[in-house]
């Protein structure tokens, strides 16, 4: 599947001490779950799929243990594979993430159409452990593998008119059977301002837990913007287009009063139908407080002078 050769082996990049600590965190989490005796916890089956080695690892979730693989890959919002949380994992077999062609075009001097594995060979892959906050008030901690979207955008030399970046999911009702029903105006589209897209935290992800991204998580290539609600993380991307004008985004087109273009995590601004002040971290019993920008306060400068209450 992933045929590229990394410059260094994953175990060379990460001090063994850290790697072991990470496993301790996992064990601690598992022990905690057992101690709680919480019913309904899936016994951990562990990561599966082809290895996706990384050159660098950064834990950017305040030292929290990642949510177990089984939970990350069985509780998904990916309406193209079904609208129930368990549907995407069940239906992911219809998605064929290799071979896969991605086009990056629009306001760039060097547009590009290439195979996803060729794209992945262009950048050193990193593991980034991020919090992921869904607009539905649940959250996870996920060890993504990918590369900064900004690195790709800079390679293609944006023109002076490039103000926004538009993303598009594959449109194919055979591979994505959920598209046979017009729940959303397919294909799913998302967008970022160019400064958001080139922020070092913004990731194009192709893997999870050291493995190639499973279909239900948006294989082969998805967006991860950790300070925004999960719906901004468009999955199974086929096209990235730099634009001068703000592109339409699927959820804000469907319900403009509930989902805006920005989708910044903000405990102060409730969704009209539920509070955003707290969230349930998957695997935990009590809800915890939601952090502004999902705890990634370093992005606040992107929004200087704008009223954060309007950036839902």
């Amino acid at each position, binding site marked *: 599947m992933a045929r590229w050769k990394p410059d260094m082996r994953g175990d060379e990049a990460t001090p063994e001490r850290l790697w072991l600590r990470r496993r301790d965190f996992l064990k601690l989490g598992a022990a905690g779950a057992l101690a709680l005796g*919480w*019913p*309904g*916890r*899936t*016994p951990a089956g562990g990561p599966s799929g082809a290895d996706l080695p990384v050159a660098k690892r950064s834990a950017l979730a305040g030292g929290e243990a990642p*949510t177990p693989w*089984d*939970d990350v890959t*069985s*509780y998904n919002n990916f*309406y193209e594979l079904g*609208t129930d*949380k*368990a549907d995407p994992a069940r239906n992911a077999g219809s998605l064929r993430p290799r071979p896969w062609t991605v086009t990056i075009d629009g306001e760039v001097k060097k547009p590009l159409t290439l195979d996803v594995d060729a794209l992945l060979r262009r950048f050193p892959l990193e593991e980034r452990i991020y919090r992921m906050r869904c607009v*539905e008030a*649940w959250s996870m901690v996920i060890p993504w593998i990918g590369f900064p979207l900004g690195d790709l955008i800079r390679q293609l030399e944006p023109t002076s008119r490039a103000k926004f970046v538009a993303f598009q999911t594959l449109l194919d009702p055979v591979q994505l059977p959920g598209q046979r*029903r017009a*729940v*959303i105006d397919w294909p799913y589209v998302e967008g970022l301002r160019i400064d958001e897209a080139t922020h070092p935290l913004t990731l194009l992800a192709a893997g999870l837990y050291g493995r190639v991204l499973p279909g239900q998580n948006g294989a082969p290539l998805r967006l991860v913007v950790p300070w925004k609600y999960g719906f901004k993380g468009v999955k199974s991307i086929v096209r990235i287009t730099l634009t001068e004008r703000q592109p339409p985004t699927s959820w804000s087109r*469907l*319900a403009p009063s509930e989902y805006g273009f920005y989708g910044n995590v903000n405990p102060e601004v409730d969704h*009209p*139908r*539920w*509070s955003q002040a*707290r969230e*349930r971290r*998957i*695997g935990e*019993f*009590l*809800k915890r407080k939601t952090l502004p920008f999902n705890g990634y306060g370093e992005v606040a400068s992107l929004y200087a002078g704008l009223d954060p209450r309007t950036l839902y």
Partner: protein
Amino acid sequence: MPDGASRNRWLTAAGWVAVLAPLALLAADAAGHRLGANPIEAVLNRLGFWTLTFLALSLAPTPLRLWTGLGWPLRLRRRLGVAAACYALLHFAWYLSVDQFFDLQVVVADVVKRPFITVGFAALLLLLPLAVTSTDGWVRRLGFARWKALHRLAYAAALLGVVHFAWRVKADRLKPTIFAVVIGVLLLARLRPGPRRA
């Protein structure tokens, strides 16, 4: 051919199995770790689903008799209605205790501020007096005509329940629509006089 008494016993037993089966299934799924990554949400959603299902089932015997002449489902009607009220109460109790962990400030704000919770709570408030007055003693105390009039609140509760569900979902309205159609048909059937009613 079983005699009447034994047929009643079978019907009573079947009624109990029907109303308790969803709880048994829920317990089995919890014990077998089949509630997924967010079991708190899964339990809440299931209890809500069975509330609406039993509400719809409790509304079915009258049209069934009109359409097919079958009388025996009427004997299950009260049990199905009480089941709906019990599942509604469990649904709310789960939301209050496990989901919100008795954060009354949040719960009150939800009930007052969030229309989908307001209508759901109203449906629960309508169902509770019906469950309480479901006994033969209460039928006698109120008199059948008044008792029957009171229990028409179930129609309003069913409609509010459907609205609660429809306003809760984000985009996929398929399931609430199915409930709306089924409950709508069962209610509209009551408006037409039965074809062979003497």
